[in-house]
């Protein structure tokens, strides 16, 4: 297993180099002069020259790429053109917000998706099966930005039950330790902050989690149906094992592998979907950060953020592969 992990980590190197070349090239794909494009038409020659110098645009590409790579390895992601702040530092503040939202959405998607999928499979063709699978089909076709806005209209504007935007109400005070507000409020035993953060998480979490929830439910159902046809399930049933043991211990554990693949893949999509969700709910995370950078033509921010998200995505995929072994010890890694 250890050998496999090391080998997989080595295999990541070419992918990561490719990812870095692609993100590096982004700035050079801008038609015309990137510096002028960032500063706009009103910039003076002096401002232009200084930005070109700052970005090192006058050097040969290979030198620029070498410097880009060198900086990243040292954790230097550059400086934002708009705010003049260190990008790595800003990301450090914004990443926890996005990760908190993504994990919340994923937990929601996995719990609801798997439970719905298992019940739908066990009670195939029942009303629950029909309703949940129709719901799942609707879920995968749903524009999440629309769902988000409609939820704001219903739950914030009409019913005034949930806050429409942000991570926490301004009236609440919380001592931040990890920047994961839910975790911080537990660590500091601040239940008012916990409740407030949870309510703020609900709508963006549901909006972001809808598509993965639907996909996980569909995958769990079809995978469970496949497994439940197997002889060993019939044997387990025949020897009088309790129904829930057959379903959870025998069927679900074996049906989980394809579901796990979907979960891993969906995690990456969630990071992408966060751009839309965070924009709608003014969530101060990486997605909104990259969106505002795109609008402000703050290319160093776009470049660095996309690179970081791609690295996280690649790592999550690796983790998914490794988790396979736990759920299916038959898989042999060479």
């Amino acid at each position, binding site marked *: 297993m250890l050998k496999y992990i090391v080998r997989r980590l080595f295999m990541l190197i*070419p*992918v990561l180099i*490719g*990812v870095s070349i*692609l*993100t590096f090239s*982004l*700035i050079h*794909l*801008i*038609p015309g002069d990137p510096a002028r494009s960032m500063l706009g038409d009103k910039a003076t020659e002096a401002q232009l020259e200084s930005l070109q110098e700052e970005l090192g645009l006058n050097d040969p590409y290979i030198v620029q790429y070498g410097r880009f790579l060198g900086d990243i390895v040292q954790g230097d992601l550059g400086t934002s053109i708009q705010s003049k702040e260190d990008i790595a530092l800003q990301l450090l503040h914004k990443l926890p917000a996005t990760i908190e939202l993504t994990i919340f959405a994923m937990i929601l998607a996995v719990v609801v998706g798997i439970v719905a999928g298992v019940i739908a499979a066990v009670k195939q063709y029942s009303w629950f099966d029909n309703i949940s699978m129709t719901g799942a*089909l*609707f879920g*995968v*076709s*749903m*524009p999440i*930005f*629309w*769902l988000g*806005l*409609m939820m*704001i*209209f219903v739950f914030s*504007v009409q019913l005034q039950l949930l806050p429409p935007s942000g991570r926490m109400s301004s009236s609440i005070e919380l001592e931040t330790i990890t920047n994961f507000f839910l975790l911080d409020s537990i660590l500091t035993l601040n239940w008012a902050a916990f409740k407030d953060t949870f309510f703020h998480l609900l709508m963006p979490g549901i909006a972001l989690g809808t598509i993965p929830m639907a996909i996980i439910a569909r995958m769990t159902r079809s995978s469970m149906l496949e497994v439940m046809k197997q002889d060993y399930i019939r044997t387990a049933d025949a020897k009088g094992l309790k129904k829930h043991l057959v379903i959870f211990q025998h069927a679900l554990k074996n049906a989980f592998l394809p579901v796990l693949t979907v979960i891993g893949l969906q995690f*990456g*999509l969630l*990071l*992408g*979907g966060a*751009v*839309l969700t965070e*924009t709608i709910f003014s969530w101060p995370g990486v997605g909104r950060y*990259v*969106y505002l950078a*795109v*609008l402000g*033509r703050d*290319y160093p921010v*776009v470049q660095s953020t*996309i690179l970081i*998200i*791609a690295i996280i*995505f*690649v790592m999550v995929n690796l983790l998914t592969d490794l988790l396979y072994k736990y759920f299916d010890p038959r898989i042999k890694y060479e």
Partner: protein
Amino acid sequence: MSLQPNPLPDPKLAEAQETNQSKSSSLWGDAFSRIVKSKTSLIGLCIILILIITAIFAPLIATHSPTDYASLTDRYQSPSSEHILGTDELGRDIFSRIVFGSRISIQIGVIAVGISMIIGVLLGGIAGYFGRWIDQIIMRLIDIMMAFPSILLAIALVAVLGPNLRNAMIAVGIVGIPQFARIVRSAVLSVKETEYIEAARAIGAKHGRTLMQHVLPNCLAPIIVQATLSIGTAILDAAGLSFLGLGAQPPKPEWGAMLSDGRAALQNAPWVVAFPGMAIFLVVLGFNLFGDGLRDALDPRLKQ
């Protein structure tokens, strides 16, 4: 082996052969009859047909002009007999804008998926057919593209190319390439081992001809399924880009852009947001339903 012809054919055998003949039909014929039997794929097909008819006859169906506005006193009118889906912030008729927006959605679906399909099929075909180092290089490139969440890569591409509908379609098309390449590659890998490919090679067909004339046409089923499902995703992604202001620009009646315009008035005029979103949802649902049905119909494992 006897050279004597059998004077009395076994009646049971002949009957079996006959039924076999009447039963055997083409893959596409089988697929068609299975789709017709599936209610959900028929619903999907109906939605797609309605979309196409709406796009073709948009000027006849729309009750108002999609871009002109009579007067600002018509702003944010709630749905009525005059404006069945209400009016937007400039007093434009939402129903007419949605009707004309169907043309843009079809355009996005066809062009973006066309880009993904042409490049993806070629890359996947070449990788699968030639194998070895060519396969390695192409598939590593695909891996690199897949290291980015697709909508994020599309956003980055649009940020660089400039925000407009054309670039949004290109970006959505580019991020869809890996799916096609991977599906076609695995289909080619199995097709190229078949005897008719060996035969084509044996009679001296060149690689290019073998790939284009014999291998790829036999990988058509998974390509068509992927294309149908991709149209829904492409429309969704492009609408997302337009919603962020990175796709279609005003006054184009693109559904995602309409939703974005209506955001400011969500509190007082929710219909400006509700109806264009419903249109996106229905069309994507249509393509997903039909795509699912096609996949089931073309999957030989489900034949029993």
